[in-house]
């Protein structure tokens, strides 16, 4: 094995303990007689002080919330699900919904009657100003 191959193994398999003992011995033998490879090996320093941080508790809380929301969703048809939710909503909020619909209907009728009144006053003809 030449120096290039030895250095490749030093920085990968040798360092990571992926080599068998026979190959390890050959590499060690080479290093003991080769200043370049010995210097290369000395440059390889494993990192220390690697912090393992625990995830914040809110991460699980968020996951839990998402799962709970998903569990409430149906497995099948979304359209049926929306209809079901709408029906539930109408049942629970019957009075406010009825009041809103009534007010909205009255407003539409009022607007339509005002518009009809204007048309009657002008004889149903739209008067345009030609700037004369």
């Amino acid at each position, binding site marked *: 094995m030449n120096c290039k191959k030895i250095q490749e193994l030093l920085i*990968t398999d040798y360092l990571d303990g992926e080599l068998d003992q026979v190959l390890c011995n050959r590499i060690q033998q080479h290093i003991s007689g080769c200043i370049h490879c010995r210097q290369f090996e000395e440059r*390889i*320093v494993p990192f220390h*002080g690697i912090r*393992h941080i*625990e*995830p914040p508790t809110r991460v699980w809380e968020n996951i839990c919330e998402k799962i709970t929301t*998903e569990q409430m969703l149906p497995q099948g048809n979304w359209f049926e699900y929306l209809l079901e939710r709408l029906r539930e909503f109408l049942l629970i909020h019957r009075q406010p919904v009825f009041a809103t619909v009534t007010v909205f209907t009255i407003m539409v009728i009022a607007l339509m009657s005002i518009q009809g009144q204007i048309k009657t006053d002008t004889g149903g003809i739209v008067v345009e100003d030609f700037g004369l």
Partner: protein
Amino acid sequence: MGEISSEILTRASNGDIKSFEQVYHEFSDFVYNISIKITSNSHDAEEVTQDTFMKIYRKLKTFGFCSSFKTWVYGIAVNTAINYQRSSIKKESQQVDFETIALTLKCNTATAEDNIIEQEDSAQLDSLLKELKPEHRVCLILREIEGLSYSEIVGILFIPVNTVRSRLKRAREALMAGREAINNEL
């Protein structure tokens, strides 16, 4: 970090939240830490951790117990983190060059001696890791930080063992060069 029992996994896949919480506590440390190392940002790491566990929850029914559950979880975590990092528009602004790292380390030298070495090593590693390509970074993290073997990394990343080897080589060469540049600056 051991394997979780098939009974717990079955219950979790059927929607039992207490069982899924056990899965979470078993793997959250790995998922969160690898996410931090890949995204270089704790906020993004939280997002990735949440996404990863939601994917695990949704896919639990498809896990066939043919492979190791740990490898399966690691694979989902790593891919989610890499995809998140790739799609992140903030990526460019998070890049730090070696001169900046050296300056940061110079500023840290005013605190207690024992802490300095630990903080510097950790800060140095974090900063140097940011400089690596995501795929090189992942290989290095799985090997050096998580202590996985080459065959385990192959199982997680679905790449040939020679690719694992070459990525580790490139990552370590880059780290060596980066570290030497920092030491020269200091």
